[in-house]
């Protein structure tokens, strides 16, 4: 898993490249905590280069969205492939993580807040 971060005004975008599983989830958790602890409350996750997620990945995303919710923050996802979307659906996570196809739609949805 490779991670990179870009900023769009007050929105933080984290790009995940590879597999989000038990082996990589601690690094993703650290990256999310770093942004949340720095006071950022609008986070977009780019899943377009992420080909796999397990429950270990879901777990760190859920912890991050709980922390954000406590600060009136939000986290959106774009570009998830059909397999990753199925995992979110079966886990009952779609109500917690709005999914968009394109980066522009996700950024626009957060800017409306």
């Amino acid at each position, binding site marked *: 898993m490779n991670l990179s971060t870009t900023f769009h005004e007050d929105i933080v975008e984290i790009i995940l490249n590879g*597999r989000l599983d038990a082996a990589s989830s601690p690094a993703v958790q650290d990256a999310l905590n770093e942004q949340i602890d720095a006071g950022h409350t609008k986070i977009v996750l780019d899943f377009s280069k992420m080909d796999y997620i397990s*429950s270990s990945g*879901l777990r760190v995303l859920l912890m991050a969205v709980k922390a954000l*919710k406590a600060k009136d923050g939000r986290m959106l996802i774009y570009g998830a492939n059909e*397999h990753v979307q199925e995992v979110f659906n079966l*886990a009952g996570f779609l109500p917690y993580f709005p999914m968009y196809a394109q980066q522009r739609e996700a950024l626009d949805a957060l800017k409306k807040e």
Partner: protein
Amino acid sequence: MNQTIHFEIANDLAEIERLHEEFSAFAAPLGIGDKIIFQINLSLDEIITNIIHYAYSDAEKPPITVNITVSVNEATIEIIDFGRPFNPVDVDPPDLEAPVEQRPVGGLGLHLVKSMMDAIDYRRIDNANHLILNKHIPERK
């Protein structure tokens, strides 16, 4: 004709990516579609990650055995470990309807396995946990 593949997995999370690569390379030429390969890979991951995290005390960690047999219309996945007895069939599902604030952060892995596989069977035989997963394969390309 049945096709079988056998793995010995060390107690190391890095082994799971190798297992995924090797199972995918075995299954794709058999005409098994991407969706079913993903579902079997995820189920293997969830079960083996649980074993690596919870089955053994610190001292001795024997390898985990995985046998996968593909018949005309079904994949049978057998996962064997020598850790403490654990029957995943008995684990209650998480509350999927809870609002995010009340949603517990664990317990999802077995729910995903039970959702993606068609059958799950557990037996304790000779100090080993034997978990058998079955996945129907609708049509082969």
